[in-house]
């Protein structure tokens, strides 16, 4: 199974967090690299989307769309930096 890039999560980030993923920078908790989240490796599955670090493959985050709510887990990131637009 192959991955796509972080742009695939643009809609999910915009609707759940109100942020623009293509200008958001995150730092990988596992390897410490910082990068634009659009460069992350994203595995889209029918259960949810899994975002991985392009450098070390660690899981950066998971987004699951359930019945009543959407779960956003970004626990593999130390932080995200969202510029004021």
């Amino acid at each position: 199974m192959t991955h796509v890039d972080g742009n695939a999560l643009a809609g999910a980030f915009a609707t759940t967090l109100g942020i623009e993923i293509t200008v958001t920078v995150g730092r990988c908790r596992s390897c410490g690299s910082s990068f634009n989240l659009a460069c992350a490796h994203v595995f889209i599955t029918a259960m949810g989307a899994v975002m991985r670090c392009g450098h070390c493959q660690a899981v950066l985050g998971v987004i699951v769309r359930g019945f009543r709510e959407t779960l956003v887990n970004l626990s593999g990131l130390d932080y995200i930096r969202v510029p004021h637009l």
Partner: protein
Amino acid sequence: MGVINGGFGGRHGSSDPRLPPGQTHVYDWPVLSTGPTPNVDEGRWSFTITTEDEVTHRWNWGELQEVGVEDVVTDIHCVTHWSKLDMAWRGVPMDRLFEDVETSYDYVMVRSYGGYTTNLPLEDLLDGQAWLATEAEGEPLTPEHGGPARLLVPHLYFWKSAKWVRGMEMMPSDDPGFWEQNGYHLRGDPWREERYW
């Protein structure tokens, strides 16, 4: 997802008593992977069960075959609403692998090559309910379907049947695995539709 049968006017719709609520019968076998597919060759494959006493029971590929494989025909149910009926599997019963394991813990964390995890109560792995599967539909499991070996726990949603399984660790409490930390049910019984938290 692949071709879905049993939708509008389908003859194999939800009327089939083998289909849990909210499931649709499919004939293909969709693949769901949360990361790159690990390529684990049988030569360096091993499976371990680790207990609270730090005792590790280990089988390499050859030793696993010696434990004894059996044939299983069963239905599988994915939480993403597809079910595949009458699948032919071949694998080692988990009962045999737990025969010499002494533990007072009631829960198991399953760990896979590639980092995937899932949690299960030990009782869901015993009494003829679970296998370490090495073949499906008459063929060795391909890497995309979890080969060389995957867990098969067909009475629970299929995310519990971890691909590329490499070991099990006994746990005193039902700590969540990968999907269970991210909104999915701790146990995942398809007949109770235990999909989300």
